[in-house]
């Protein structure tokens, strides 16, 4: 009885060690791939950072109308954001190559599905980036316009517009990532509707007078005849 137990234990130990020995080259390959990719990422990040600093990327970005990207960047520097993103992508690629070195069918499948998912992630990130830029731009437009119209709730209006666009962008990104699409649709509908309703109530209750004055003025002016020419005022 004891011999049988001993034999079974020996067999399982041998099996475990054999499996471990099988895995070791893969693990070593993964570590080597990660090390190489880290060094490559580090070099590439330095090159990208120097190149972008050379062309004054941060300042140029502001001129191209993407000034809000600074807010999202580490240390308010889009150059750092781009160089770090490049480094992360290289390390991720090294990790995927390292996993593929296991040469097991299951890991290949995993790698293949991860690779197939990357375009979705990139697409979602792009949607989020554009969404945040548009949200900031519109929020600033609304804020300035509302202050110039002497609306006391200018900031609320601006925040409402910003979150409206951000919620839309996040919902689109999640849809792109195929994460619980049903729940996202429902949550988006509720949240978007809620924000619109809040804004309608806030504006409607506070600016009845303004709207009626505006309508009265429009009714008095013969349509199309009044052409405002700024240089006539100077």
């Amino acid at each position: 009885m004891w011999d049988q137990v001993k034999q079974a234990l020996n067999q399982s130990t041998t099996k475990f060690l054999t499996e471990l020995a099988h895995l070791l080259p893969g693990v070593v390959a993964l570590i080597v791939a990660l090390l190489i990719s880290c060094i490559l990422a580090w070099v590439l990040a330095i090159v990208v950072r120097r190149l972008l600093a050379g062309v004054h990327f941060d300042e140029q970005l502001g001129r191209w109308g993407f000034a809000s990207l600074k807010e999202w960047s580490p240390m308010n520097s889009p150059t750092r954001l781009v160089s770090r993103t490049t480094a992360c992508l290289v390390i991720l690629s090294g990790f995927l190559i390292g996993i593929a070195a296991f040469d097991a069918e299951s890991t290949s499948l995993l790698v293949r599905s991860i690779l197939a998912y990357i375009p979705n992630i990139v697409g979602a990130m792009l949607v989020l980036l554009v969404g945040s830029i548009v949200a900031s731009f519109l929020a600033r437009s609304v804020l300035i316009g509302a202050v110039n119209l002497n609306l006391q709730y200018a900031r609320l209006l601006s925040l409402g517009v910003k979150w409206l666009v951000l919620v839309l962008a996040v919902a689109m990104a999640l849809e792109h990532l195929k994460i619980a699409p049903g729940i996202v649709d429902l949550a988006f509908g509720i949240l978007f509707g809620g924000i619109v309703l809040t804004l309608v109530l806030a504006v409607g209750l506070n600016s009845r007078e303004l709207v009626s004055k505006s309508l009265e003025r429009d009714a008095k002016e013969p349509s199309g005849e009044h052409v405002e020419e700024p240089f006539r005022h100077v």
Partner: protein
Amino acid sequence: MEVDAIPQQTQEQPAQIDSADLVVGILADLGQDGVLKVCEGFLNLSGSHRIVVLQRDPVGDPAVANSQSAPEGSSLSFLPWSAAGPDPLAAPTQTISIACQSLFAMTDKLGARACCFVASEMENATPQWVCQLLQPLVESDFDLVAPYYAPRMFQGLLNSSIIYPLTRCLYGKRIHNPFGPDVGVSRRLAAKILGANRSNNGGSNQTHPLSLLAPIAACDNLQLCQVHVGARAYPPTDWTNMSSLLAQVLGPIFIEMERSAACWQRTRGSVSVPVHGECQDPSQETSGLDLNRMAETFRLGIRDLQEIWSLVLPPATLFELRKLSRSTADLVNMPDELWARIVYDFALAHRLQTINRDHLLRSMTPLYLAWIVSYARELETAGPARVEQRIEHLALAYEAAKPYLISRWRWPDRFNP
């Protein structure tokens, strides 16, 4: 030749007219009688001239008009002027710009000696007022004849608060209405303006021809003068839409400031420009401005726009603005020195494109309204005689702050008090 700038309808008509001495463009809605009255004034011009009048609406039978108003030995031709293209309502803000461009192009094409642009109506207009703008061009070879409207307390405030003092300080010439819009321009200056706009090649830096007049004339050492033309009838101001006005008027000024930076950085102080004609005393007028609302908009700006202003204005200016906002009710007293520095900071931010340019200019509105409150409160009790003195004080403040502008313009990152 800037033939593209001439609207199609205008191009078709002058086929028979291959040359002229003077071209007069009347964009103002003067009506048939008004145009004929202006043409009567041409009788006062010395010598005989072939005059081409471009106008929005035809003056009845041109033959009748010609026979009635042409000076002896002179010829007068009328051409319809669809300055704003087929649909004048399509791009209202561009109307004067397009009209000016086409007038200058027509002057160049016809080889005329000079042209005159009429865009305003005058209170108590005399037949001679347009002729007064032409006389210095014809008789004394001036290149730019700018109007000198009778000073008004509460009209043309954008000119009084920014355009006049800024142009005077930058280019060193005391032209009281540098943007006209009623101006006399020599062919030489018209060709330079067409050339400047052509070199911009229709890009985003395309400026307004009127904003180019004084800078080009001053930087190229052309002959300038001013003419007292009387009191101008201003169209009513839409105070609720002030931000659009600021954006559309200040944009071209700041763009031109960027283009001519080398010229204005060399200029120190200012000199007076000769004035022709008789000065009219400023008339008493009530402000009719809702100063409480303006002060409230300023306070709202201090509360909600600080985030934007902090990208444009240095901390010391922001601190002073916060102090101003704490003053009681509508008693906002903005010192001229502070206002001049604010305008300079916005000009610099426009150049650096710190934020979107339209946002930048529109965000200046509450500050402009604060200046108006401060100005109106001061002049309410002082009376109209003090208007010119008050504007002179402001212009001197702009001149005193010019070293600040130059330092910030040259070293925007290093010089940030």
